[in-house]
């Protein structure tokens, strides 16, 4: 169980809070999709969960530990528990799929071993195992810049899974992918969510995808939670309110930059 208590984030030079006194509890088994307009605070929320963003006030409590008072070393331990995938994949260029996936273990090893790239056969076997799970076995030795967008995100997911995390965080993981690929990535995420008993929290713009895969939808507007319930409850009116849309019909593509 992950508790978010009274989290407020204010970026320097900004008039309004990016997040305004957010209170949430994430339960085991939750597959949460976070909806909201660009600038509503979705990314900020996700980035607070693994300490990439430090909240201005409030605290996050997981496993009896409060994030607000962590040393660098403790923060690194927390991050190992939180696999993260990104909109632009954030893979290391000029390295192969296998090499990129192995970086998922970096938090568990000494920087010296990481630097020279020394891995045991067992570690390599683990990496190959997750590469197989995301369906990229044939591409393991291919350099990542030669892959398609969907394949790149699969590498990102494999890297996150190699951390053997308790949480999977996604910051708009399908916003750069076409609809068919997005759907396949979500179905892979759902499969991994169940197989690895994860708690999954993903930002997404595509309401249809969220309704299809999430067990719970949270909608943010101007830094505040305006909806937190089962996907069936997210009505067309709620959609119009969340996105300040004219009507449900004009949904199409609303993207963050």
């Amino acid at each position, binding site marked *: 169980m992950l508790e978010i208590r009274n989290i407020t984030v204010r970026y320097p030079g900004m008039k309004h809070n990016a997040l305004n006194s957010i209170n949430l509890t994430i339960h085991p088994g939750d597959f949460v999709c976070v909806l909201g307009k660009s600038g509503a605070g979705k990314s900020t929320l996700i980035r607070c969960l*693994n300490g*990439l963003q430090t909240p201005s006030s409030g605290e996050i409590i997981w496993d009896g530990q409060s994030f607000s008072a962590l040393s*660098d070393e403790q923060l*690194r*331990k927390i*991050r*190992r528990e*939180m696999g*993260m995938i*990104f909109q*632009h*994949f*954030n*893979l*290391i*260029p*000029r*390295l192969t799929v296998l090499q990129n996936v192995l*970086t*998922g*273990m*970096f*938090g*568990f090893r000494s*920087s010296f071993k*990481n*630097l020279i790239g020394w891995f045991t056969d067992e570690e390599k076997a683990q990496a190959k195992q997750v590469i197989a799970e995301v369906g990229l076995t044939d591409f393991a030795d291919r350099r990542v810049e030669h892959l398609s967008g969907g394949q790149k995100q699969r590498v*990102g997911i494999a*890297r*996150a899974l190699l*951390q053997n995390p308790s949480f999977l965080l996604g910051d708009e993981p399908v916003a750069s992918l076409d609809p068919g690929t997005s759907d396949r990535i979500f179905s892979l995420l759902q499969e991994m969510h169940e197989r690895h008993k994860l708690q999954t929290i993903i930002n997404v713009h595509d309401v249809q995808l969220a309704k299809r895969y999430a067990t719970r939808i949270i909608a943010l507007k101007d830094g505040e939670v305006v909806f937190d319930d089962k996907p069936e409850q997210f009505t067309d009116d709620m959609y119009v309110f969340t996105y300040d849309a004219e009507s449900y019909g004009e949904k199409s593509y609303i993207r963050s930059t």
Partner: protein
Amino acid sequence: MWFKKRSILTYFVLALFVYLSMRLTEFDLSKFKDFRNMIDFLSHWFPMDFSLLPKILEDSLETLAMAFLGSFFGLIIGLPLSFMAAKNTSGSKLIYHLTRVSLSFVRSIPEIVFGLILLTALGLGPFPAVLAIMFHNIGVLGKLISELIEASDPGPQEAMKAVGAKSWFASLFSILPQIWPNVLSNYFYRFEVAIRTSLILGFIGGGGIGQRLFNDFKTFQYSSVSLDVLVIMIIVVLVDLFGSYVRNRVI
């Protein structure tokens, strides 16, 4: 549409600068009436005297070694400094500014001044020349690479932090692969420049083919001068070709 009246002033100022600079540099094309002297002079360069070729090649090897060692040590020392001199990777503002200032300080001192100073302690020869090239290249490569680091994509760095890697390691591991091809092309360019610099340093007693060129010139051995120049040109072209070969292999 794109011609603005205000630009007339710009053109006028530019023309003024050109005129003033020509006055200061005694730029005068009519001086070419003595063009024949140059032809006459160059005619003494040929035929080339190949009898000294083995000695010339030996000296070129020394020049290559000087340029390589100086620029390579410059890279080895400049690379870590560049991470301290880049906004996104230097730990603190103090380190950032301190490294920036020191880098531009060593960069602002011309190699020949370094050479002349070091000569007093180390005596004539290639060793002070290597150090002079090294110091200057620490400054130049440190600055150039720090700019590559600042322009690199922050995404991979964030991903490496997110897997729980130490912060310094996350920066190093995610940025180095991104900038490596450009680091190499900057390095090879500096290597090429270092060859030309080592020629100048040869004039002040730094050894190598530069010193031979200078001596041949001063003793009117023009048939050797021409061969020296030819060998130098070949070396520069070869280094350039080797540089692009390595860079293409790396990309």
